[in-house]
């Protein structure tokens, strides 16, 4: 068997309806592959039935950089619109199901749906209407394709219907665009490693999982929107 080759790649994600649920607009390719790795090799971690600390090594098909970082850019896209949509949680506690199923165990009183444990929710979500999302990386195209094939959605709240993926395409490019590329800075970089210039500077993780505060440091943040849409 031939040894897999790491080559410069451009990966394009097309969303089914173009709607992406993301408050800061940053979509990380290594985070998507990280999620895919767990889905393939340790789904029990996401199911809560296996401790993450039991996983000793996570091997993504990307060039590994120092401090366990990966050679992958964030997603760049044309954004056509930005809109607040809502998800709601209806407490059935006052509905017909409660009449039939709720056992108050001999107690009586009011169940408050305006506050506390049984409150109703109407949560705003920032939904971006975007064109195809471009990522750049140094990686193994065959293994990346296998992993992306199982990723049917990206962004927040896919269980509610946002971020469904229509398809992925992978194509070779001439050089490594994971730090500097066609859109300038291509991924958040620690401020000690990249000149801030006009870029935004704020706390951001530099490796997956991106929600983990221990992975965060002060970074220079790329401008992910491609601004030639009229």
């Amino acid at each position, binding site marked *: 068997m031939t040894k897999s080759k790491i080559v410069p790649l451009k990966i394009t994600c097309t*969303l*089914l*309806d*173009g*709607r992406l649920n993301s408050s800061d607009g940053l979509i990380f390719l290594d985070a998507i592959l990280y999620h895919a790795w767990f*889905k393939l090799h340790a*789904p029990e971690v*996401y*199911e*809560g*039935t*296996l*401790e993450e600390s039991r996983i000793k090594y996570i091997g993504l098909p990307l060039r590994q950089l120092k401090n366990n970082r990966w050679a992958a850019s964030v997603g760049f896209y044309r954004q*056509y*619109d930005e*809109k607040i*949509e809502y*998800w*709601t*949680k*209806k*407490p*059935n*506690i006052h*509905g017909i*199901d*409660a009449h*039939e*199923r*709720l*056992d*108050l*165990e001999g107690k009586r009183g009011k*169940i408050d749906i305006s506050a506390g*444990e*049984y409150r109703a929710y109407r949560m705003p979500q920032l*939904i971006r*209407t*975007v*064109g195809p999302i471009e990522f750049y990386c140094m990686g193994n195209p065959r293994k990346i394709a296998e992993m992306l094939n*199982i990723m*049917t*959605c990206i962004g927040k709240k*896919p*269980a*509610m*219907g*946002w971020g*469904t993926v229509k398809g992925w395409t992978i194509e070779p490019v001439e050089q490594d665009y994971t730090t500097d590329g066609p859109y300038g800075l291509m991924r958040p970089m620690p401020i000690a490693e990249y000149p801030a210039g006009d870029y935004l500077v704020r706390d951001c993780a530099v490796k997956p999982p991106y929600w983990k505060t221990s992975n965060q440091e002060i970074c220079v943040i790329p401008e992910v929107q491609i601004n030639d849409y009229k």
Partner: protein
Amino acid sequence: MKTNKSYRVETVFTLLSPLSHIGESESTTSFLNTIRIMSQGKPVDCFAYNGNALRGMLRDHGASYMLDHLGNIGVPKKTFDLLFSGGAIGGTQSADIDQARAVRSALPFVSLFGGGIGNQILEGKMTQTFAYPVCAETIGIIPQGRNNIDYTAQNISWKKMTGEISFSRMDDAKHNLGDRYIVHEGEQLLLSGDVKPEKGKKEDNEPATQMRYTVEYMVPGTQLFHIFDLNCSDLELGAFVSAVHRWSSRPVLGGLSGKGFGQVRADMDLITDGERQKFMSIEGNQPVLGALAGSAKEQYDRHLESMYRNYLTTNEAQFVQLLEGTKK
């Protein structure tokens, strides 16, 4: 060991009566829910049925089905909230591996839909799209070549598939029914009630509380396309089938079902390992299960029966404790 498989369930809903699914309201007029989508490279507004509304509807029916098959039991409010609304966590999120294992293995329904138990969030195993109308704006979203989709609708904008209807609420107290049946001063009361209006209640000479309101709707015959992606075990697929099966006894979407809105026919295909097969179809309260849906539901029914015999009849408290996330 349970193994997860990937299933895609594609549903075509055909409206048999008007559909109301409101987004914004202005005065007494309610408008359809619209979202902004990419249509052939351009952003356009389009009606869409919210995915979370579909999931919430199936969650209610799945929970109801499960409790029926566990001896038609009632449950305390915390458990009720978990089963029907997804629950809530009571403090800082934490992980309890043993509890997660116990819940996922005993209750495929909770494992599939997810929820907050104790201080732990159990992630569900479904993702989905919104349900989009088959129309000019959704060319590119609706897949080609399905024999249950009427593609001629793609020549028409969704805006041509809408209508408005007004309803009125008549205050019968102000008409001859009120004159005839409301008790007057000096008349004998047969049923308990107040002869004199209480403070703050309506007097005879107050204006009638009548109103007229308008709703925008999608016209009957419109088709909606929806996708569920499940990554789950066979038993969890059975829990999904059970929810759809229970919904099929009253197959409606959206609001105003009491006024005859929202009746639908549903054709569901299942795609697994690249193979497409008939999953379920629902027309007129009659679900017809495909081979895989039928066997998954049978397996789930057997699981619930075994839960009922081996667990609930002997130790109901332990079952409730499991769902409430109480520490052992």
